[in-house]
């Protein structure tokens, strides 16, 4: 009976893989995978820009901080 298991399982596994591959292809084609890095920067703005730490212990700052 073991061949039966493989006869059923293999096509299913292939089908599953194929659908996953197709889903990825579809997502890529429709631009779902674009602009990722832009999203990463969406939490920053002019006032709290990239490159500026926003949290400190009260009254404790690095000595070389010149920004403020």
């Amino acid at each position: 009976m073991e061949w039966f298991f493989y006869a059923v399982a293999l096509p299913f596994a292939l089908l599953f893989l194929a659908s996953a591959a197709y889903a990825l292809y579809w997502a890529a084609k429709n631009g779902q995978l674009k602009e990722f890095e832009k999203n990463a920067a969406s939490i920053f703005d002019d006032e709290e820009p990239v490159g500026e730490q926003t949290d400190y212990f009260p009254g404790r700052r690095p000595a070389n901080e010149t920004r403020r």
Partner: protein
Amino acid sequence: MNRAPLIFLGVFLALAFSWTGIVLTNQVAYGNLTPIYDDAEEKIFPEATPGVAQRGQLVYQDLGCIYCHTQQVRRLGYGSDIERGWGERQSVPRDYIREKRVLLGTMRTGPDLRNIGARQADSTWHLLHLYDPQITSQGSVMPPYRFLFEMRKIVGEASPDAMNLPSSYVDGTPLPPHSVPTEGYELVPTERAKSLVAYLINLKDTYAYPETFNVFPEEEAEAEQSEAPAEEGH
């Protein structure tokens, strides 16, 4: 770009997948498991739980016994449940179908209780153990359940339920004075204590269902079972 519908769909499918697989499929597969009628014994198994034991289960639930005691025996060869004498066979789903709430448990700070009624059927032992676990099992971390007992004045004849406490623990230290009844007083278990004990004594899966056979190759099982089951601690 608005990905909200895509996210929502994925999120829905993700949980729907396991809900179908774990909950729904099993509910369909064995959610309607029925008791078995044994022609030879002319009885239905698992047997109905007596009312007093059902009330005892509620006490078991409200005191939170489940947090230290499991009620499931694992198969021979996986863990040492059967070698410890916690059961003659592994637990199967049919064992639990009469229970309103299934209390499998996840902790074994204390021993498994699935077959406690089979290995300790003496209600006096259970009452002493509940009153002060150190009397029967010195060194235990089980809390005392003295509040399930009543210290009361003897009026007329002494109660037949009155507890007979030993004067000292196994190691010779005397029981603390506040837990021993003084002259003219007696210690009696409340209804809750008695129903809890009835529940515990009723806990035993001794009937062999068809599905409990051949779960394990027979010779191997016999070979392993011939080793003497270990004694339950005290």
